[in-house]
């Protein structure tokens, strides 16, 4: 290193807060990028609905977990600044402004852009029940009487009846009611509620009713013309609310929704039975501290006053919503029939490039490591791996980690079958997978009942790694087959998330996989790992070493480069190492979908770093790390982001890809992502993201290209198979059951 550079380096404090972006603010920027998709006129209308719905569900989760956590810190008097130098109070203040802006954008998009377009395209969303015509009114009232009324539980508040529990995320209608005077008691009494207020001098009482989540939020109603008309369930209830409070006059009624602190606080050390403790905590989630209140814009101030008081919420945490509360219903709207022409055609995952679905999977793995690219390629090989293992007479044991699974998981079914077939089945089912806890408890119990050995996670750590080990007794001894992935064993999300996986029987990885499960089962860690990097004990130092090694190459005047793709980057030590590497001359290209606390373009700190975020039809989810290493390139994939939680508080696995053909494939994939100029946004030095300048360049949508490429490969394989065979084999029955379209 030159003397000048050394001098410069000694002056730079790479950990200075000015070099970091606050992670929560960065998250809001991510949701803004998702919003960008909802606002993109080039995207089919119904896809835009979906993106808007995603921004809403994202925001819900953000409040329930991140904002809740900051509030906890604030309440506890915690004032330590984060890596960007902001205290919890400062962060909350900043976030308040940003989230209010985000909500404004959501509703301006919905009201001004999407609703009119929906109407133009034949779907009328009746925003207020006052807008219904007579035929529709009659339909709505009948629907209310027949279907809705029986499941409603109206609740009034008075001295004998305390303020009811308002469940987290539930949609409710609050009302002010007054007792009818004698004259009025037997009157026709239908209260015509306006959106505004009805002044009355009579004493008012608070009443509320929860909009039932057992009924569809979107109600189809008779249409005025050719198109379809729908109204939201809360409007149906509001129209008929006086029927719930007989003998009362409803002064006003407005929907509201609360968001509660949903971060589970489980004392795992003290919990004797983790399963029972989580079940208990899940119930508590329903009455955590209220951290956000959404009310209809124009709500009666008296009603708002009661809600504020009873829910103990401050004005800045109240969101006045100029439209329907809880936009996640748009995902249901996406599913309405008859609008396929307004959606991107359904993607059908292709047959995998490196394997055939009609041959024995173990024989194929023995021929060489297999790379799987979801959702471009079908998830079926992973299911087949577990299914075949369940049936194979030579398989002795199956071990798997599960974090999030689908509702009717074929993986779980295969594991149960394996246990029934006498295989030793060990499953680490992570009960602490946030918002999937209840689902996971049900599955874990089902597996246990079938005779599987179920481990409910590890005290103090979340097991986020994606690994399956199959132990098989073969002629020449025990052979271990391993699947390692970047995404969950969830066949449903595997159609929407971009993830990678490998199937291998490499002995070194098999040994490591065994050690991983031993560790997860509560046994001691091994002295050494052959190939895998495992968090929380060993992974971070490994990454720091790999980044540092590139920096050393650069300092020695050798070409040095890192390309890393992940969901989030916010680990301060890793960021500092990247800054040092950039300073040393390493060219670093990062593909980070979500949070990024690293800043680009800081002179002498991050001049050599680029960050791009790809937000597209599929959720970018794979984690891939490539290091040039003086030409002896190394490429890793895994379950971990470069976040403290992944590197220090979770069990994560990162694995090397060593088959040359697969390395080339992955490099081409990374190159494609780096060239994306449709769905990518580039991080700017000021923290904003901008779309790349496409002028004079060909349009590259990396996800669309991957879809095309997978189709091309599948087609060529299909043709070659047909040409070389004298007969066309029947489809595998398992394959057909799942409705996949493979016909090799």
């Amino acid at each position: 290193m030159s003397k000048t550079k050394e001098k410069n380096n000694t002056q730079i404090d790479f950990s200075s807060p000015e070099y970091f972006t606050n992670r929560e603010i960065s998250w809001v920027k991510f949701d803004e990028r998702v919003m960008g998709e909802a606002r993109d006129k080039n995207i089919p209308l119904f896809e835009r609905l979906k993106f808007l719905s995603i921004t809403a569900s994202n925001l819900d989760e953000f409040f329930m977990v991140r904002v809740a956590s900051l509030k906890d810190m604030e309440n506890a008097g915690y004032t330590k600044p984060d890596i960007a130098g902001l205290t919890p109070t400062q962060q909350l203040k900043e976030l308040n402004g940003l989230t209010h802006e985000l909500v404004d954008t959501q509703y301006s998009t919905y009201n001004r852009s999407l609703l009119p377009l929906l109407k133009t395209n034949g779907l009328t969303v009746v925003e207020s029940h006052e807008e219904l015509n007579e035929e529709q009114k009659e339909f709505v009232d009948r629907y209310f009487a027949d279907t809705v009324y029986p499941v409603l539980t109206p609740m009034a508040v008075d001295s004998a009846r305390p303020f009811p529990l308002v469940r987290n995320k539930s949609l409710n209608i609050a009302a002010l009611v007054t007792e009818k005077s004698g004259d009025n008691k037997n009157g026709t009494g239908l209260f015509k509620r306006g959106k505004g207020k009805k002044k009355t001098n009579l004493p008012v009482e608070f009443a509320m009713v929860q909009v039932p989540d057992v009924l569809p939020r979107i109600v189809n109603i008779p249409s005025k013309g050719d198109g379809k008309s729908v109204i939201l369930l809360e409007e149906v209830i509001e129209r008929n609310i006086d029927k719930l409070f007989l003998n009362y006059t409803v002064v006003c009624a407005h929907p509201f929704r609360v968001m509660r602190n949903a971060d589970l606080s489980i004392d795992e050390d003290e919990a004797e039975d983790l399963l029972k403790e989580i079940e208990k905590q899940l119930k508590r989630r329903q009455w955590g501290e209220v951290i956000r209140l959404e009310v209809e814009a124009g709500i009666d101030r008296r009603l708002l006053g009661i809600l504020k008081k009873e829910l103990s919420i401050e004005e800045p945490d109240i969101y006045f919503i100029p439209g329907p509360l809880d936009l996640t219903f748009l995902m249901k709207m996406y599913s309405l029939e008859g609008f396929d022409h307004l959606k991107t055609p359904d993607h059908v995952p292709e047959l995998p490039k490196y394997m055939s679905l009609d041959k024995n999977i173990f024989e194929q793995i023995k021929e060489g490591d297999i790379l799987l690219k979801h959702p471009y390629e079908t998830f079926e090989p992973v299911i087949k791996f577990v299914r075949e293992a369940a049936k194979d007479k030579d398989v002795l044991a199956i071990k798997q980690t599960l974090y999030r699974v689908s509702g009717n998981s074929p993986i779980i079914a295969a594991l149960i079958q394996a246990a029934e077939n006498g295989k030793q089945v060990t499953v680490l089912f992570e009960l602490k997978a946030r918002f999937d806890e209840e689902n996971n408890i049900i599955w874990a119990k089902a597996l246990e009942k079938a005779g599987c050995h179920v481990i409910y996670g590890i005290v103090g750590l979340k097991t986020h790694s994606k690994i399956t080990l199959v132990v098989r007794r073969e002629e020449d001894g025990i052979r271990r087959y391993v699947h390692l992935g970047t995404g969950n064993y969830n066949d449903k999300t595997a159609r929407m998330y971009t993830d990678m996986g490998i199937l291998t029987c490499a002995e070194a990885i098999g040994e490591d996989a065994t050690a991983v499960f031993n560790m997860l089962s509560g046994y001691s860690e091994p002295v050494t790992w052959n190939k895998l990097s495992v968090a929380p004990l060993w992974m971070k130092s490994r990454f720091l070493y790999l980044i540092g090694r590139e920096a050393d190459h650069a300092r020695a005047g050798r070409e040095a480069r890192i390309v890393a793709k992940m969901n989030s980057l916010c680990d301060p030590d890793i960021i500092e190492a990247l800054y040092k590497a950039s300073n040393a001359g390493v060219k670093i290209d990062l593909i980070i979908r979500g949070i990024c606390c690293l800043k680009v373009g800081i002179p002498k700190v991050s001049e050599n770093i680029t960050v791009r975020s790809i937000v597209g039809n599929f959720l970018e989810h794979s984690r891939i790390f490539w290091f040039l290493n003086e030409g002896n390139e190394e490429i890793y994939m895994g379950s971990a982001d470069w976040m403290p939680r992944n590197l220090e508080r979770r069990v994560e696995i990162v694995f090397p890809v060593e088959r040359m053909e697969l390395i080339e494939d992955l490099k081409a994939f990374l190159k494609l992502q780096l060239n994306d100029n449709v769905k990518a946004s580039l991080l700017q030095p000021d923290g904003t993201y901008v779309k790349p300048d496409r002028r004079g360049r060909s349009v590259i949508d990396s996800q669309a290209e991957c879809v095309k490429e997978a189709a091309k490969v599948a087609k060529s394989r299909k043709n070659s198979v047909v040409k070389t065979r004298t007969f066309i084999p029947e489809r595998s029955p398992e394959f057909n059951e799942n409705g996949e379209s493979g016909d090799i």
Partner: protein
Amino acid sequence: MKIFAAIDIGSYETGMKIFQISKRNGLKQLDFVRHRVELGTDTYRTGRISNTHMDELCSVLEGFNQIMASYKVDDYVAYGTSALREAESTMIILDQIRIRTGLNVKVLSNSEQRFLDYKSVALKGGKDFDELINHGTLFIDIGGGSTQVSIFEKGILNSTVNLPLGILKIRSLLRALEPGRSKYIELLNEEIVNELFSFKRQYLRDKDIENLVVIDDYLPYMMQKFRGAGAPDEVTAESYTAYTDEIKLKSAEEIAKSVGIAPENASLMLPSAMLINHLVKDTGCKRVKIPGVTLSDGIAYDYADKAKVIKAVHDFDMDILSCADVISAKYKCNGYRQQALLMTSLAIFDNMKKIHGLSKRDRLLLELSARLRNVGRYVSLSSPAHSSYSIIMGTEIIGISHVERAMVANIVFNSFTDEFSYADFNNEELDADQSLRVIKLAAILHLSASLAQNPKKKYAKVMAALKDSELLITIQSKSDITLERGNFNNRADCFEEVFGIKPVLKYKGVNEI
């Protein structure tokens, strides 16, 4: 091909290794699980194993059962070591384990345990190990309750000693004193120096030690940290000292974080590291080898060795015998008399195979008995039988079990008695089969001893041959054996009673020996 599980119930950890054993590929480790169960903290403090630890142990063993089932293991061997051995109610504990887990656990004597550890290093090292011990080598086997140090010179086990330097014991002792960090290191050093003092004077004087071979559960982690994955398991003495100097400045938590192990394990690594550091300095050795084997490796190697699946380069029986030679030399009974006794008894044993039905291991016990028979004469000329018995029972002979040691002591004792029979033989430590073997071997030794009474008589050759119902024993010597013949005839009846064969002595003079 066989799948074999080796289970080791240690003082602070219970572990299991699963091996694939085949003639073609030898031993291949498939799995290794360990769980911390500090049985030793109970035993060393109270002499009993608490119910909590017992429950924990059984739960771990249940887990092992599941893992064994997942490999469909063909066979297993489970051994308990010092914590179980030193517990007051070992038999009850073993019975509980059997009832609760279905596992049959046997307790190893210290010498058996150390021998298995040693065997694993030797078998893993192959020819390299034999080359290593051609130079002065200290073999240090660190345990929770004690540490076994064996000295090799010129390829032969020279001596072995058990030091009360168990890392769990040291840690418990020092923790109870609650010293600060620097004081802890000071006390640790003091404790090690104290315990090594006599050992150094007795065993290390004039020894040229080049190598230290260390068996320890946690030092391999330290090697891994400093040397990197896949590096050789050997470092120079200077490097080793540098590593230790670096970790000794850290707290258990810091060591744990830096090395990548749990803090409770790190707290056991430091005493081991410091002990070896002292031995590095005391011996002035050139290199330290930490092969990272465990007792489970030894169990598996022993299993494979006995099943003749693997062929050992090293002769382990020679180690046992060489150890016995060191003992007999110590008691000045390693002269011609011992030689004559050995020649005669082995000649009889080898030619009576069809009659006695004893095994190769029994031959080794006979050989040991012959080597140690006269150790008691050094203490008492009037009652050598009792003295020899006591010395043998009180001396650790590496490589044999406690029961085998009792057998040797009884063989020796009875070889002094002219009137013994199976009916009279009653020993609480031995079962019927063992007692019968003792009687047979004692009968051989008893008869042989009649020919090995003069410390100056040297035999050129001793031959034995079965003919009809007689065992012809031919002595080739230039010395007169009239006196021996008389003794022989007196003892022949006893031999005949045991084997139903009449021994007949023949003499063949030689001109020159």
